């Protein structure tokens, strides 16, 4: 599944990021393949979303979140 399908406070493991530019940007911001990612908050108008991996905490649009493949952690 992809990151945009997670609800608030749900987590997953980052498997792969489709778009190469996005992947590089996410990596540089501390979102590393194989590590845990959590949806902290979804904006009032349903887009963008706040996501966190460890101490790293960023905002991203749903269109970009769709590029991020994850496996959900229950």
């Amino acid at each position, binding site marked *: 599944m992809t990151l945009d399908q997670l609800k608030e406070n749900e987590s997953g493991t980052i498997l792969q990021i489709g778009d190469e530019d996005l992947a590089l940007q996410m990596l540089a911001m501390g979102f590393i393949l194989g590590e845990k990612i959590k949806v902290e908050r979804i*904006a009032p108008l349903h887009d963008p979303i706040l996501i966190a991996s460890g101490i*790293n905490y960023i905002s991203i649009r749903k269109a970009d979140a769709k590029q991020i493949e994850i496996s959900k952690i229950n």
Partner: protein
Amino acid sequence: MFNVLTGLNQKVGNFPGVTVDKKSGFFNVKNEKVNIIDLPGTYSLTPNSEDERVTKDCVCNADVEDIIVVVADATNLKRNLLLLTQIIDQGKKTILVLNMMDLLQKNNHEIKIQKLELLLGIPVVAINARIGKGLDELKYKIVNHKFKPTKFIDQPFSSNVIDETMLRYNKINQIVNECLIVNGEDKSSILTRKIDNIITHKIYGYLIFLALLFVMFQAIFSWSAYPMELIENGFMLLGNSLSNLLPEGMINDLIVNGIIAGLGGIFVFIPQITMLFAFIIALEDTGYMARVSFLMDRILRNFGLNGKSIIPLLSSTACAVPAIMGARTITNYKERLITIMVSPLISCSARIPVYSLLIALVVPKESSFWLFNMQGILMMGLYLIGFITALLAAWVMKSLIVSKEKSSFILEMPIYRMPRWKNVGFQIFGKVRVFLFDAGKIIVAISIVLWGLSSYGPSETYAKIDAKYTELAKTNPTDNLESMKSAEKLESSYAGMIGKTIEPVIRPLGFDWKIGIALVTSFAAREVFVGTMATLYSVGDEDNTSTIREKMLLAKNSRTGELLYTKATTYSLLIFYAFAMQCMATLAVVYRETNSVKWPLIQLVYMGALAYFSSLIVYSIFS
């Protein structure tokens, strides 16, 4: 960090993109002068925006002798080491500085510095920039350290940058595991997420934002009223005593009516401008701006803008020049361009003097609605009109500018912290100083020229007026003959001639030739309007007993003889100043940021047309 090293006071803030350009300074160690260049922060050497590109180019093209000092946030070691290792593998002499060690210790974390040095093969210095700890060690290492060539990963720059980055992270992970001792959870991070639950709430989030704006505008108007009155009276006193002290004549006239009147007109607004900058800078420093961007992204997208545009748009309420430079953090060129094009429509601090003066002409100070000061509400209304117009203009441009570039909104949410009041204070001081000196210089220069132009005219015409009034004085001596004479002289002075020339164009807006002169002089900077008014209405006023406002209240339209500053004319003038592009500094920065004459020209023309036609409409509605 840069400020502590050099003793300078450059801007810092709590969101990415505060420094968008390189700044240079120097420091001395034992008679050796070390030049340093401060670069915009970046996450990696793969730039995503203009400000990051500045850093990448500067680092990659650095001289072999240059030393790159990477200032890392010690609380986020892993991510910060990525950039460091990329720079090491560029073959540059590199020093790692660990900042925010105090925060790290607060969380009971610890970094083994010596081990880190050993594993990375470069010098590592722990500092606390706030209290200046570790700086001497850093300076010493910059000057004396013998750098050995080192590599972090063996085959960098492989074709697949993602694999390369992952390779780096694997190695970094090992290093971090050995050097970082974690003894507790990160408290500030947890607190930040809790605050965000309220700040980005679907209802409270927007309410808090609106409330903050409202308090800001009320503060600008009501809290600064008393100091403003003080300054106003002070200048009047100064003008009067100088006028009595100096021998009568030309010099006296020039100083009192030209310079003092012009400067007084601008100094009055220090309290309001200080208040505005204090709010904007404090908000930037806490980390709140990133959250506003998050809340606004979806809305602003409809107007061809980006969530990140809110920072330039909001800081445009202080000044469009740094705001337009701040737009560099917007990755998408079209969104960045639209942000640049509409930012000057947001009312800036230079409009405050103009608005205040004009609003005071039509709304009495005491008048209030419920709890709120009417003048404050009108002021806020003008800001609101500017904001809405900026959005509409952006929406129009969105469909006019074609672009296929993809748009994104990836923005780090910094941890909340209290504003660093010392930093806020320094910045306010700096901004107000720039406002006073830069604007002051123009104002004094224009005041002097204007005083000259409005005191002198073609000698033939002046001689005729003199003769006419000598004649009149003989036959019909009345009290106000003298002031009638000076009024007529002003009208036929050189300045009067200029005003008269453009009067036909601006007459439909309800303006007369005196306002015409002000429009010409305030083309370079809006706030000159006030000084111009002060000078124009002081010439020929021998007693200098009343403020500009009182003089303007009595001003008559020279054609109709009725009071000039009616509601219609004043509102029309307010709208004109809200929309017109009267700022050379902004045009210059737009030229620099877009690297073309085309965009500042379009901006000048579209804002001019908007101002003219809006004023026309407003004037016809109210008259």
